[in-house]
């Protein structure tokens, strides 16, 4: 008898509370019992639906009832002819040859050991290949309908972006139909650490991406902080594709129901980053988005969707400043005039203040708000993060001063004007002076040479 450790656990534990699976399915005897039922052609799903849901709807059954049910299973186990179980062996007498091919050259061999260890290992061949009842069977039996049992997933898939993904939508992600494992099993194609590779099989394929006009997000993700956490650290809690996009019912981000729709991004990212979400929602951007202003940035506008970087790294600090500037154009222009910007632009020196170093990253508040990092009472502390000796006079420095704006910065405006007048008057006068001198000297030189030559002749 093959072992089917995970099967009942997975399926039965997913049933609602009420008659818990432990009550009659646990223990090796119970497992064997259930698996025998599978082998006899009673789909566990049906078992689960009929028995568990009925029982869970009712009040907790009396102990007598439970014994009666258990007795019924024991009876079935004993009563089912062993001949029925021989069916798998019949199939495997041919299909156990792993190199077996059908007329069209398709591999139809089955690794029996692997299959029996898989989540469907206790099902009989004909449970899925339901069109085959006897041998010889037709050359092209009907396709397996996973939806027979997995109706909810099939429904989700039908409404998703993958609805037209091809003939074998289930196995595209779950892998070889005879080797499907629970998503908690490291062998599963949908185990958290395997998900990026599974999705990347299509979404990391340049040709496919081109053909369907998809962004090639796989490499961006793999180089991101999430991708690194999954691939290098093996963090099961790190966001993989599914964490944000869902699984069967993946929707376009344009769909308002999608977790990747702009309106839902904060909630989606906040499902892990709860603290940051709370900060964000109390800041100006979070409030704007909550108030329906979809121009305000959400998490992905600053952090990007897939190529998310550790926010302290140089490239993040450099690439994110212009993102703020794409809306705050005036502030970006004045920031560019300052030392803070000039330093960073030249590379290798990104510690100088970026937008969020002063304004805050998530809980951004206007200067008029006393809690704001840029409220006048907090400036010494905020500037003091970098400038250790910052004092009240020092923080009068205007990080967005505009020497071109006479109304806002009159002193600076006139200083700049004076310097420009000085620069252009000095240069203008001496350019003319030196040009005339040059011409006169050249003229004299030519004349002298001419007379010199004349004398020489």
């Amino acid at each position, binding site marked *: 008898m093959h072992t089917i450790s995970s099967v009942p656990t997975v399926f039965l534990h997913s049933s609602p509370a009420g008659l818990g699976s432990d009550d009659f399915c646990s223990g090796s005897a119970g497992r064997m019992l259930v698996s025998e039922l599978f082998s006899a052609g009673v789909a566990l799903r049906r078992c689960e639906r009929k028995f568990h849901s009925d029982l869970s709807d009712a009040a907790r059954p009396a102990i007598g009832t439970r014994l009666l049910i258990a007795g019924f299973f024991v009876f079935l186990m004993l009563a089912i002819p062993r001949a029925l179980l021989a069916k798998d062996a019949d199939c495997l007498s041919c299909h156990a040859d792993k190199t077996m091919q059908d007329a069209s050259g398709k591999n139809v061999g089955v690794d029996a050991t692997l299959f029996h260890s898989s989540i469907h290992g206790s099902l009989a061949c004909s449970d899925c290949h339901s069109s085959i009842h006897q041998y010889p069977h037709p050359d092209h039996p009907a396709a397996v309908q996973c939806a027979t049992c997995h109706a909810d997933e099939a429904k989700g898939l039908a409404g998703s972006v993958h609805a037209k993904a091809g003939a074998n939508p289930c196995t595209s992600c779950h892998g070889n139909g005879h080797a499907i494992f629970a998503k908690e099993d490291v062998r599963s194609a949908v185990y958290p650490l395997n998900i990026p590779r599974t999705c990347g099989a299509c979404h990391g394929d340049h040709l496919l991406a081109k053909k369907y006009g998809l962004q090639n997000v796989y490499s961006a993700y793999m180089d991101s902080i999430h991708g690194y956490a999954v691939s290098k650290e093996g963090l099961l809690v790190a966001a993989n594709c599914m964490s944000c996009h869902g699984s069967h019912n993946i929707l376009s981000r344009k769909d308002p129901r999608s977790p990747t729709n702009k309106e839902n991004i904060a909630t989606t990212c906040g499902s892990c980053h709860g603290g940051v979400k709370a900060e964000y929602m109390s800041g100006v951007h979070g409030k704007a988005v909550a108030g329906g202003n979809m121009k305000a940035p959400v998490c992905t506008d600053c952090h990007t969707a897939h190529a998310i970087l550790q926010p302290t790294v140089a490239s993040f600090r450099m690439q994110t400043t212009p993102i703020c500037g794409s809306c705050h154009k005036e502030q970006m222009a004045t920031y560019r005039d300052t030392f803070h910007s*000039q330093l960073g632009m030249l590379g*290798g020196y990104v510690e100088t203040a970026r937008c969020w170093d002063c304004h805050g990253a998530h809980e951004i508040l206007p200067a008029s708000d006393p809690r704001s990092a840029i409220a006048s009472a907090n400036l010494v502390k905020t500037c003091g993060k970098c*400038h250790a000796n910052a004092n009240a006079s020092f923080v*009068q420095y205007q990080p967005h001063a505009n020497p071109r704006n006479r109304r806002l910065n009159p002193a600076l405006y006139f200083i700049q004007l004076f310097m*420009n007048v000085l620069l252009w008057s000095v240069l203008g006068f*001496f350019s003319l002076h*030196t040009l005339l001198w040059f*011409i006169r*000297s050249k003229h004299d030189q030519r004349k002298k040479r001419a007379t010199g030559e004349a004398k020489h002749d």
Partner: protein
Amino acid sequence: MTEPTEAAIVPATQPEARKEEKYYLRFTLPQRYLHAVLFTSFLGLAATGLPIRFSDNAGARLVARAVGGFGAILFFHKFCAIVLTLAFLYHVKDIVVRAVRHKEKGLFWGPTSMVANWKDVKDLVGHLRWFVGLGPRPQFDRYAYWEKFDYWAVFWGMVVIGFSGYAMWFAPFFARFLPGWALNAVLVVHGEEALLAILFIFSIHFVNTHLRPDSFPMDMVIFTGRETEEEFQKKRPLEYQRLVRQGKLEAKVADKPVYWWVNFARVVGFTAILFGLALLVLTLIAYFGTV
């Protein structure tokens, strides 16, 4: 920079031996050193300051990244700034010593002073008239008006750029006695004044002193300290005549500069001029590319 000392290269008999070319000393060795330190540190400051001033310019970023990014650029900028500051302080100390201890006459006024006087105004007007053929060529004394302007432009520039630079370098300290808006102002002043200095030195000074037809391709006197009698008489007739009158001309006689020194100075000088002209072109491109 290991030029033989004056004594070593001025054997008493030599000047008489060479009748065809007589040399006179115009700049002393410390003055020549000062100019050398000034132009090397100025080139360094310009080369490292321009990428910061035009940080939006792709070329500036390329240069900055090539030398190790902003950290390296600023390090070199500050290093050159300290060198130039020391040179400036040395010069000020020199003037004070000459004025106070040696009670040198003519330091602050008269024909050998750097201070501008009425004759400079007349010379400027006369020179301009001569350019366009309206009058004779003015006769100059020890320092011509454009040389005085060069001197004071650099002097003023060092004070302004130096002060604003140190105010940025030690901003929290300067904020103790400067108003907050001054911290904004010093960056504007530093950048604009430096731009003026760069554009002026690399175009006006280069042409006035080195590249104009009478001096082309380079006036070597600032490197050798010496010039021929013919040059002296032609360029500064008033000083020559005054020295003859006062009987002080012979005290200025110097030997002919040695070849290796002239050649070395040529290499250094031409490198500096070409480097400066390259910076001038890049500056103009960056300036008119962003305005």
